[in-house]
């Protein structure tokens, strides 16, 4: 009998249909129809994902094979979906949060023309489709197709308001940075094909194919895949595109640049956990890069005044946390944090969208203040998000962050110390953001004040749902030292990471130590929260920053450094090739030869401008070189 999970193809099918319908019909459909098709497609996928999840939970995992996608020689790449614990969890996150964000978008984007409204939903559905391919694919090639697809959609959506030139630049920047990562991914892929002859996950991670890989192979492949992940998941050195990507509409930032696409790198590494567990050196690099990114981005976020930029850097920082978890072997913690982060960061992005909507497009928090009086639901839900990300006990962020820090402590107390410091910074800038925006008195114009209002229900309902999830989402992973056997997520994901557990030796930290660490960090965080809240409610940080603050406000000048070190020299090289090689060398010789030839006959001058002669000369020269090398230098 066929496995019922063969039906999993329905999950990506709905968004694809939504994309086609909205893409083709965007000129003819009304806005409400477009919104219904767009959101309905994701809701349908969510329903199927839910069913799939319960199938998996009851122990039914399956690789659904549809047809052979590529068949070259003895390499067969099937078009197949792998439905297991890891992918089913991601499916729920993507379709669930995806649906809420689609719903939210119907109100947020309502001022767009119907045609653009349709375009927006078509892109958004296409994005969800690609993201689903990425997590469902049973081999690296399908994953790569999704990987490229989400990159493309992200590019299209960042540049959605393409009439602004800087938005186009942001889109191009994101695309190019991602391409650098993709290149590494591709090389890893071909390396893998060359050595093992397969790209299917189950086959690659089998003992037979792992035995074909030398230590060097594993190190190179995992390192290259990690470079791919740094592009997509915005880690050092390829993170600068993500803050610029905030040029896109806010729901897009919530869906793509907070909840789903940017976690693709984490998904990929979690999926390939066996390979990584066999490459301890790469694991250490991942942990260090993750930690450095977390710290760097958190310091930058301290001084940002654009509400979305703060959230963007916070996302980069939290992604760094997830990589720290991966690097220290706490794969479950990484996936756990992906989930809780998806809840509270999507919540805060949507909340910021609600604020921006009310402020008539204003994003500078220095011009806000006191919004809690005008927008009750947004205020409360945003506060929940801030409490969750800060790691206040009882909320989802507390559990996942605590688990990551515990894992870091087990590996090295230094990691723990930096991680905790970053957590304190996070609490600080989040409450700086919250207090400056919602507390104190309003600092905008009268016109804006008059305009302030709570957002419509289509926007507040997703906020409320996400706020609830941000509160309760953590209880699937209650740590062992609080209640034994209550970490149901760990048990659920156990089969996925089982091979890694066999390779990695577990560091055990005693329950007493864990209690101590948790209580200590909680007290510190609470102190920071209270300090930031009271300070910025009374006296918001409005002055132009000086000294170190200025460096932070300018993002450590990383963009400028990249510009000076990479972009400018490249442009110069291009100009050099164009000016010197093209105009001076080539044209110089051309003109020189041209003058020589001109003695021959003035009649043919316009044809014999010397070029043909030069061309033939160059061809003959290169042939002579080859002949000489072939006959005198090659054995």
């Amino acid at each position, binding site marked *: 009998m066929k496995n019922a999970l063969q039906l999993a193809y329905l999950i990506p099918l709905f968004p694809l249909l939504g994309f086609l319908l909205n893409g083709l019909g965007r000129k003819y459909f009304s806005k409400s129809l477009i919104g219904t098709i767009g959101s309905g497609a994701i809701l349908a996928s969510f329903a199927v994902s839910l069913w799939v999840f319960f199938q998996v939970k009851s122990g039914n995992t399956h690789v659904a094979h549809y047809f052979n*996608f*590529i*068949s*070259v*020689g003895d*390499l067969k790449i099937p078009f197949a979906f792998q439905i297991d614990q890891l992918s089913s969890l991601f499916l729920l996150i993507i379709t669930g949060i995806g649906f809420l964000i689609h719903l939210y978008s119907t109100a947020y984007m309502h001022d767009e023309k119907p045609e653009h409204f349709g375009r927006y939903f078509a892109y958004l559905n296409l994005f969800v489709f690609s993201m689903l391919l990425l997590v469902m694919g049973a081999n690296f090639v399908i994953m*790569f*197709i999704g990987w*490229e*697809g989400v990159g*493309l959609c992200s590019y299209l959506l960042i*540049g959605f308001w*393409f*009439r602004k030139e800087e938005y*186009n630049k942001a*889109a*191009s920047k994101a*695309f190019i940075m991602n*391409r650098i990562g*993709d*290149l590494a991914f*591709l*090389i890893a892929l*071909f390396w893998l*094909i*060359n050595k093992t002859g397969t790209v299917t996950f189950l086959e690659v991670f089998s003992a037979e194919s792992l035995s074909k890989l030398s230590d060097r192979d594993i190190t190179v492949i995992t390192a290259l895949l990690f470079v791919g992940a740094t592009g997509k998941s915005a880690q050092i050195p390829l993170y600068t595109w993500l803050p610029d990507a905030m040029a896109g509409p806010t729901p897009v930032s919530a869906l793509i640049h907070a909840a789903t696409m940017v976690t693709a790198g984490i998904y990929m590494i979690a999926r390939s956990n066996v390979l990584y567990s066999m490459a301890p050196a790469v694991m250490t690099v991942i942990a260090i890069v993750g930690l450095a990114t977390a710290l760097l981005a958190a310091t930058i976020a301290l001084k940002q005044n654009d509400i979305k930029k703060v959230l963007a850097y916070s996302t980069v920082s939290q992604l760094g946390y997830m990589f720290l978890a991966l690097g220290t072997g706490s794969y479950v913690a990484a996936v756990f944090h992906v989930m809780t982060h998806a809840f509270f960061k999507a919540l805060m992005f949507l909340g910021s969208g609600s604020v921006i909507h009310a402020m008539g497009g204003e994003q500078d928090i220095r011009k806000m203040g006191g919004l809690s009086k005008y927008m009750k639901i947004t205020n409360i839900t945003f506060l929940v998000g801030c409490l969750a990300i800060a790691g206040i006990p009882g909320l989802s962020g507390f559990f996942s962050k605590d688990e990551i820090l515990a894992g870091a402590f087990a590996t090295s107390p230094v990691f723990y110390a930096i991680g905790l410091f970053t957590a304190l910074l996070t609490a600080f800038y989040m409450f700086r953001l919250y207090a400056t925006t919602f507390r104190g008195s309003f600092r905008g114009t009268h016109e804006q004040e008059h305009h302030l209002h709570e957002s419509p229900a289509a926007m507040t309902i997703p906020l409320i749902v996400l706020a609830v999830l941000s509160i309760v989402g953590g209880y699937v992973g209650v740590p062992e030292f609080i209640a034994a056997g209550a970490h149901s997520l760990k048990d659920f994901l156990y089969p996925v990471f089982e091979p890694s557990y066999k390779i990695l030796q577990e560091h055990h930290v005693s329950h007493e130590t864990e209690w101590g660490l948790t209580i200590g960090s909680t007290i510190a965080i609470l102190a920071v929260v209270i300090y930031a809240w009271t300070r910025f409610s009374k006296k918001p940080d409005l002055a132009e920053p000086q000294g170190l603050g200025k460096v932070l406000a300018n993002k450590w000048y990383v963009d400028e450094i990249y510009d000076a070190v990479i972009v400018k020299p490249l442009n110069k090289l*291009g100009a050099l*090739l*164009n000016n010197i090689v*093209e105009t001076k060398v080539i044209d110089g010789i051309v003109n020189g030869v041209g003058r020589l030839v001109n003695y021959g006959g003035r009649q043919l001058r*316009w*044809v014999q401008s010397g*070029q*043909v002669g*030069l*061309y*033939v000369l*160059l*061809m003959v020269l*290169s*042939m002579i070189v*080859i*002949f000489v090398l*072939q*006959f005198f230098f*090659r054995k």
Partner: protein
Amino acid sequence: MNALVLSAILGVVMMFSGILLKRPAAIRSVAIIGLLLLLASNMLDMSGTRFFSINLGDFLHFDRFAFLFNSVAIFCVLVYVLLTGKAIERVGVKNYADYFALFFFVLCGIFLVTSFQSLLILFLGIEIITIPLYILTGSDKRNLKSNEASLKYFLMGAFSTGLMLMGIALIYGAQGTFAIEKFNLLKIPGSPLMIAGMLLMLFSMAFKVSAAPLHFWTPDVYDGAPTVFTSFMATVVKAAVFIGFIRLFENAFGLLQPTWQLWVALMAAATLFVGNITAVFQQSVKRMLAYSSIAQAGFMMLAIFALNGDAKEGLLLYGAAYSLATIGIFSVLSRMDDYSYESFNGLAARQPLVAATLTIFLLSLAGIPLTAGFLAKFYMIKAVVATGSNLWLVVFALLMAAVSVYYYFRVIQAMYFREAGEHSASFQEPGKGFKWVLVLVAALIIALGLFPSLLLNWLYF
């Protein structure tokens, strides 16, 4: 054999149709019917129905690979005529029928090149292909650029013909025969006469497919020729010569692979580099496409380098994917007055369907997944990986493919993300038929990107 004879006859028919028929549309219809007949006769030949029974001796051998490519070539010419046929009127209506006659003669040459078994036939085929191209390049008689391009092409073409003849002569001296089947390379594999002849053949073939360092003619000629004919030269013809190229190096020089492989690798790398890097700096889409055709040739050179089963299948797919996409792009370009990137600004708003299909063509050329171009590149890379060593070439090719994304996306960006300004060139309103064919070609590119077996299965069944 069916197609070979028929194409020669059809060429003559087209010449006379110019005397009898005055309306371009009527001439075009005759050509389309002729191409359909040609396609049908070739398919019949492939399935074993032969109209002629001639002893081909050591001259020609029609195998499935050749038949299949011939079908692809005829199909591409058909698509080309459907899409660009009307635009040829802009070059001149007076000799309108003659252009189509030349297409049939070129096809005739293509059939010889794809199934030659003797170096003489290869030479004959190459010349039959090239001479009509000289004429087509210079067909815009009142345009100095076109004249200049034609003369340049002719001068350098004559040079490459000389190389080829010299090569054939040397090989004849070494082997005592023109029949490639009868070459005896085991006995005296490394005779200098043979190797010199082979290198000369390599150069002349590289010239025809515009591989570096013999690519210099390409940008000037492609840029100078009337756009409609550039489209023809840069696609079907180039792909066909590649088939001849791989046939020559597999059947005639296969055993000498250790000698020539390094040179082919270096030429492929140089071609990829020159094509891609120079394309980035072009300001005219037409010139960019000329360099892009060099860049794509670099990728196809990888098939010659690897020379295994994957390479041959991949070359077939590559030829089809590249030709169809490029013909599509040129068909749009030939309806524009101005070839700068700015002229594409805001095309998506004015011509959404045309812009969407154009995007698919460009994505395919850039090798983005789900298009035929991606799989074609995948096959090439796979073939090189299968040779075991030479990972540097793979890495380099991928790097260059990444560079190519930049200039292809520039067109997409102009179409979608820029407002139409004063620079936007007027775009001839396309008819319904044109749009249908564009959509069909785009669908075909996606279909081949998902199921390459649609094409490649023909090789075996």
